[in-house]
């Protein structure tokens, strides 16, 4: 039970890292638990499509949100599945964060990002540069999420497919 609790905390932090690179406003809102994923059909679709490409055998799957799905493979490496490589930096940083977290627990692992649609994969190691970047990111998250008000909405291309679209622009 304790492990699950702890992992959900790590997972929560992982999503925040991802959001930091996608949309700082989303990061702030998410940190206050102002989320709209549960009523978004797009989110549901993403979830289900993931299950198609990677049936549950051999993996312990941890759902993170519409864009992010973490699998812990049977050999202990960490895998994330993405539908496109549009948010590459955010994806990489998220996986690197998990590696960073595991490293602190004395576990050294590899991270893999699969892009099934593009038939590609990316293998990641925790390099000193990444380590530094993760530390920096965690600091930035702290700064943003402790602000009393959210960063203002800024229109990006990805807004249209975001579960927060109606909230931000309605």
């Amino acid at each position, binding site marked *: 039970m304790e492990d699950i609790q702890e992992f959900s905390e790590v997972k929560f932090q992982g999503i925040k890292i991802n959001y930091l690179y996608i949309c700082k406003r989303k990061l702030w809102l998410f940190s*206050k*638990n*102002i989320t*709209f994923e*549960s*009523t978004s059909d797009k989110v549901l679709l993403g979830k289900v499509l993931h299950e198609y490409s990677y049936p549950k055998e051999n993996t312990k799957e941890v759902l993170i949100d519409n864009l992010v799905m973490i699998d812990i493979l049977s050999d202990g490496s960490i895998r994330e599945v993405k539908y496109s490589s549009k948010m590459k930096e955010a994806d990489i940083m998220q996986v690197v964060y998990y590696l960073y977290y595991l490293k602190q627990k004395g576990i050294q692992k590899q991270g893999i990002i699969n892009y099934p649609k593009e038939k590609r994969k990316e293998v990641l190691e925790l390099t000193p540069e990444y380590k530094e970047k993760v530390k920096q990111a965690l600091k930035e998250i702290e700064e943003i999420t402790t602000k009393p008000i*959210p960063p203002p909405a800024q229109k990006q291309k990805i807004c249209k497919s975001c579960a927060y679209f*109606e*909230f931000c622009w*309605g």
Partner: protein
Amino acid sequence: MQKSLYLTSNGRLRRHENTLYFETEVEKRSIDIENVEQIHIFGEVDLNTKALNYISQYGIVLHFYNYYGFYAGSFLPRKKNVSGDVVVRQALHYLDREKRLFLAYCFVESAVYHMMRNLRERKEAEAFLIAIEDEWGKGRFNISNIAELMGLEGRIRNIYYQSFNQFLPEDFAMEKREKRPPTNPINALISFGNSLIYSHTLSQIYQTQLDPTISFLHEPSEKRFSLSLDISEIFKPLIVDTVIFKLLNNRQISLEHFDEDLNYCYLNQEGKKIFIKEFQSKLETTVRHRQLNRNVSYKGFIRLECYKLIKHFIGDQVYSPLKAWW
């Protein structure tokens, strides 16, 4: 869009091997539970905890109405979208006198706007429209507390309801607005419509992080989910009244659709069905939203109002109530 179900027949809501059925004397119908957002129960319906637990798993809200079609209560499954942060800030806006008055004013402003909008295209009601504009024009700047605002709103609503006599069929004359109980058909229609909009608004609030019990125009100490009453003010003239006008002027509803009991006048089952059908089709009607550049249904606009309130509470964007631009 997730759908609303309305059970006007008597029967039993039953779970059998992970299928939800509504069984009446004449049929046993399976319900496509995955697509349902809310169920409105008007008939005499039995259900047990086994069914309730199953319904809860899907986050479906149940609204119950009494024999006369008035809102009785709701069953809200354990909420998933909880944000303590939003609730605390929502409460702050209630506690601060100025902040509370601002929001209360916004609700009334939007309600009055939509009342005037309903009269605008009716030549017969011109004098009433002018009277409302006059009352609102001179009253709106002299409000220093909620009671005064309520008073102004009440005076405007009186004029507004009086105007109905100018363009509705004679059978539906409005002497005065009576709530408990409505004793004539027009009052019965308004009360029924207001019950529906109230519960639908509650369903939308439930989907967000807002706390339905902290309100601004209405006192939170009232028994009901008073935030739903606040937001309903905006949508009563916009949705309920336009549905009533349409049903009466097209003669879809006539006196035969009402029953009377001692002091009560209320819609009979057939009348309720006709009303609900029109009401639901209004909720599903869509309008192009200028900022979103998407079609938004009337139901969607209720949700957007909730979002705007959250943004107001968290200091993101000052609340500006809906004023139908179409």
